[in-house]
């Protein structure tokens, strides 16, 4: 080892040869020419993160929830983030993953809203969930093809052009899929099975009342708070519904309800004192 105070800690050149800066992108003291030899690197992980977004369809619309926490690794860094974004008058976009990318997506969506809903609008032509979803999926996929993804998983909820409930997922890879029960991140493991107990097949949402859907969603948020160390017990919830007669194309009386600062109710931590280690051993 080199003991010169200005090069302390470096392997001595006599023994190991000159230091190679290319190893693991170890330093930014590289020459321009050396940079060309190294692949260009974009973000490799999210920084501040939001955890699961959970959502499901019901008879008259959709319901979606996400907590208000922003984690910096395992540090609970922010407790007042809003991750459910309203786009246009009848669409919600729930975002998990990197928070700064969430904010970028939020700005993109607001720009979309202005372009589509405000410019030269002489009525009609509303921006609806399928349009927002398609647009977002193009943006996320485009970023991933540049190897510079927006590090998020997103659920878009609202109504189809024909007025039926719409729910669809997109993630940082540009993958999209749809289901009557959707969740991102930890929620896709913990919440989806609970949601599927209510809606076993996609078509079954047509028999579900709003209060049933809400009850299950609240339960999901509770289970996630128990089991997901990056979840908080404070969350927001959006319900979008239309009281339309079946078969009619235009939704009547459309309502968008955004509730904030909801708390996970009915917690019981009695079991906690019995857990030791990783929880496999019960005292």
């Amino acid at each position: 080892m080199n003991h010169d105070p200005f090069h302390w800690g470096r392997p001595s050149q006599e023994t190991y040869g000159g230091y190679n800066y290319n190893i693991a992108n170890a330093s930014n003291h590289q020459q321009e020419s050396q940079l060309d030899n190294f692949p260009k690197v974009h973000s490799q992980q999210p920084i501040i993160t939001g955890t699961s977004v959970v959502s499901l369809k019901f008879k008259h619309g959709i319901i979606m929830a996400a907590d208000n926490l922003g984690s910096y690794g395992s540090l609970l860094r922010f407790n007042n983030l809003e991750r459910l974004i309203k786009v246009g008058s009848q669409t919600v976009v729930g975002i998990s993953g990197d928070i700064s990318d969430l904010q970028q997506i939020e700005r993109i969506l607001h720009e979309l809203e202005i372009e589509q809903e405000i410019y030269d609008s002489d009525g009609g032509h509303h921006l609806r969930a399928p349009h927002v979803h398609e647009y977002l999926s193009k943006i996320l996929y485009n970023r991933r093809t540049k190897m510079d993804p927006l590090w998020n998983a997103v659920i878009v909820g609202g109504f189809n052009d024909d007025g039926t409930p719409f729910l669809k997922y997109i993630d940082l890879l540009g993958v999209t899929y749809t289901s009557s029960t959707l969740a991102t991140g930890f929620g896709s493991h913990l919440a989806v099975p609970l949601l599927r107990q209510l809606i076993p097949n996609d078509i079954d949402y047509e028999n579900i009342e709003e209060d049933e859907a809400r009850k299950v969603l609240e339960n999901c948020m509770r289970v996630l708070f128990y089991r997901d160390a990056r979840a908080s017990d404070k969350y927001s919830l959006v319900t979008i519904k239309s009281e339309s007669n079946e078969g009619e194309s235009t939704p009547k009386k459309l309502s968008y309800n955004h509730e904030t600062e909801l708390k996970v109710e009915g917690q019981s931590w009695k079991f906690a004192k019995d857990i030791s280690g990783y929880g496999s051993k019960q005292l």
Partner: protein
Amino acid sequence: MTSIGTGYDLSNSVFSPDGRNFQVEYAMKAVENGGTSIGIKCKDGIVLAVEKIINSKLLVPGKNKRIQTIDKHIGVVYSGLLPDGRHFVNRGRDEAQTFKSFYKTPISVPHLMDRLGIYVQNYTCYNSVRPFGVVSIVGGIDDDGPHLYMIEPSGACWGYTGAATGKGRQTAKSELEKLDYETITVKEAVKTAAKIIHQAHEDNKDKDYELEISWISLEETKGRHEFIPEDLLAEARKFAEEEDEEDEEEEEDDEEMES
């Protein structure tokens, strides 16, 4: 215009010996025959209104909107060459969006007008372009409250409390001068605007017109630029027509008195 025909008016960006840019003045002429547009800066917001001349009965009523939105909080109305007006508005939208993507906050109205003033002025500087054939009235609300501006083909851009352009501007201006801008609210100004447009239309009475009114107010529209609701528009138009009749009656009365 004694210098017409001396050759100094054949190209943009050329001064005549007495220091005028004729092409800019001619552009102004294009505006002076257009339908009347007005803007009112109220205590609590902005009202914009325009007289749309109906040139054919085959036109679809209520469509072909003339008042446009630059950003959620900023509206524009213009008189003159309408396609030029769209060009102007598109530039305004670009400026507003660029500003927002830089500073993550909506552009203030004075700043937007500063930028648009520069843009319009640029079209007076080169012989490869022509000046804008529109006078635009821009209104908006930002953190400093309501603002109203009018911008001309020369790029001249000033703040106003009441602005008017187009064919009936003289009538409209003299009516606007009677208003009390310290106390007037957008709700009142909507009716006033309808009345002013109606009066300004007197000069052009052989053709029908359609009225278009928009407003921006914290109370009525949460600071957004929107067309006024249908029922309010109908009410305003009715008010304007009734006022008109009353005025006429009064005049008749006066005449009778005199005789």
